[in-house]
């Protein structure tokens, strides 16, 4: 794939160049990290884009903890071990939606025309921002855990369990984000991306075991929550963070994430390339 052949064309002053048939993997990685750098700069200069991973987790943790704690688990303190992993999963998925919106905004801007005209790997303009977004998922998980601890939550898994939980959250965010990235390449406007993403994000986050014990649900809904990969992520997070236990749920969660990624990476790349 890295066949390099001498190009018979030179220009007067511009140096003689070689034309490559494809992008070597190392160059593709440089392009991805360069575009991740661009996304991080963008994030740091537009801090309002971080609201969904900073204030939202705080709001949801406090609100859900105080409102539902008594009803679901008898008290807020008893509810936190159930709730915190659920909120981590939910805020991570909410944070994913931005990936599609940002891509659509980017694609509508002039700078993407230049990306298209450059001899770079087709996946780089997608994979670069995805790499930078890992920071967003880590922030979302970290803030949720911090607020939980302030409210009295004591994760039984200790530091290793908490760190493992954050890593799982980041992996989940990265995988699920490809769904929204794909929508971003398909929809015609930012508004359409937002609307369609909400329709996917809400069932994904709420038709799960994130906030309520599944056995209180009607039978068919229990079936839905069981096939929802988010349920497995939430269960795995509970096992890791609360108990420090690497259970089968962790395996199922990772398998679920891998499946989502395996389906939506090709869809997103193909849809993006077709618009190029």
């Amino acid at each position: 794939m890295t066949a390099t052949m001498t190009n018979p064309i030179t220009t007067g002053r511009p140096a003689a160049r070689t034309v490559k048939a494809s992008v070597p993997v190392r160059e593709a990685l440089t392009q991805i990290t360069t575009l991740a750098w661009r996304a991080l700069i963008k994030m740091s200069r537009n801090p309002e884009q971080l609201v969904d991973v900073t204030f939202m987790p705080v709001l949801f943790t406090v609100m859900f903890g105080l409102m539902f704690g008594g009803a679901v688990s008898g008290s807020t303190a008893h509810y936190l071990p159930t709730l915190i992993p659920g909120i981590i999963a939910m805020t991570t998925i909410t944070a994913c939606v931005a990936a599609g919106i940002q891509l659509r905004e980017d694609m509508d801007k002039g700078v993407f025309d230049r990306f298209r005209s450059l001899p770079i790997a087709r996946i780089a303009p997608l994979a670069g921002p995805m790499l930078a977004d890992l920071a967003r998922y880590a922030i979302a998980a970290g803030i949720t855990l911090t607020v939980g601890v302030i409210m009295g939550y004591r994760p039984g898994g200790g530091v290793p369990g908490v760190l493992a939980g954050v890593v799982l959250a980041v992996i989940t965010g990265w995988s699920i984000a490809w769904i929204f990235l794909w929508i971003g390449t398909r929809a015609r406007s930012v508004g359409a991306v937002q609307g369609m993403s909400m329709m996917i994000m809400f069932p994904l986050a709420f038709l799960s075991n994130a906030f309520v014990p599944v056995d209180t649900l009607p039978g068919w809904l229990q079936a839905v929550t069981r096939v929802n990969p988010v349920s497995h992520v939430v269960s795995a997070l509970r096992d890791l963070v609360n108990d420090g236990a690497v259970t089968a749920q962790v395996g199922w969660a990772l398998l679920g994430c891998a499946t989502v990624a395996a389906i939506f990476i090709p869809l997103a790349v193909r849809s993006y390339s077709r618009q190029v």
Partner: protein
Amino acid sequence: MKTGTPEAGRSSTGAERAGRDSSPSGTVAVEARGLTKLFGTNRAVDDIDLTVMEGEIFGVLGPNGAGKTTMLNMLATLLPIDSGEARIFGYNVRSQGHAVRQLIGVTGQFASVDENLTGRENLWLFGRLQGLSSKRAHSIGDDLLAQFDLAEAAHRPISQFSGGMRRRLDLAASLITRPALIFLDEPTTGLDPRNRSQMWDTIRDLVAEGSTIMLTTQYLDEADALAGRIAVIDRGRKVAEGTPSQLKTQIGTSSLRVQMAEGADTAKAVALAAELTRVTPIVSPTGSGFSVTLSDANQAADVLIALRNHQLDITSTTVEQPSLDEVFFALTGHTSETRIPETEVSQS
């Protein structure tokens, strides 16, 4: 996978390359045959043939919506080619897009730089994406900033740049890897006269340094001033091609301009001129004069005598080479100012 060599034997041989210093050489930079783009039933680009030689400035002239941008985007691999074929330095645009993208620089109508980054960061970004080391990307970026008179603004975000500065940065970003062929889509649209003439100088410098340039413009004087050869595009079709002087002679040897005296019947004068020259004169924007192309310079006398015989007073008159405005009018039946409804769909 696509091959790394040009498909056809159209590229120059090593012997031809040796010792080549002046332009244009014998190498074909752009070759298009039957290039066509459909947007629904609208033939935005309709069966266009073009050949651009290495080292020349090739101008694509046409009004808004004529299909210039669409054509350029197809050649630059930004839009799929619906039918026909195109080669850039022998590489097939359709099947060897990655090779083509390594040889071209594209500067669009709208600045394609990142609003969130400073000028220096933008150039570094595009340098890195094209395989330069971090250090080299910085040094080339700084050179370009200095060359384009942007050094002082290097650390300012683009959102604070003026229109002219954006255009210059945009062009600088296209030059990082010194592409052999540069596409410029309306490089001076929206620029003030000073920035415009700066851009012209820059374009001439690039060609002097060995680049080939294909530019679109809706300004006739720009095509006249810059381009060695011009293709006139109207409603997706190529209506004429040649050097500026060829295009002018194609229309007529000269043109007569007449300024009517106050109170004189311009309409009647125009009708007389039309009758004598069998060409539709162009009435000046103020309506107080007209110009008409002449197939024979002696017709100037015929027109002026007729005006005198009909007591139509004039204040001034000149006979000169036809302007490209008149060329355009003669070729397309409407002036370049005619605003066709915006059908030129820019891809995105």
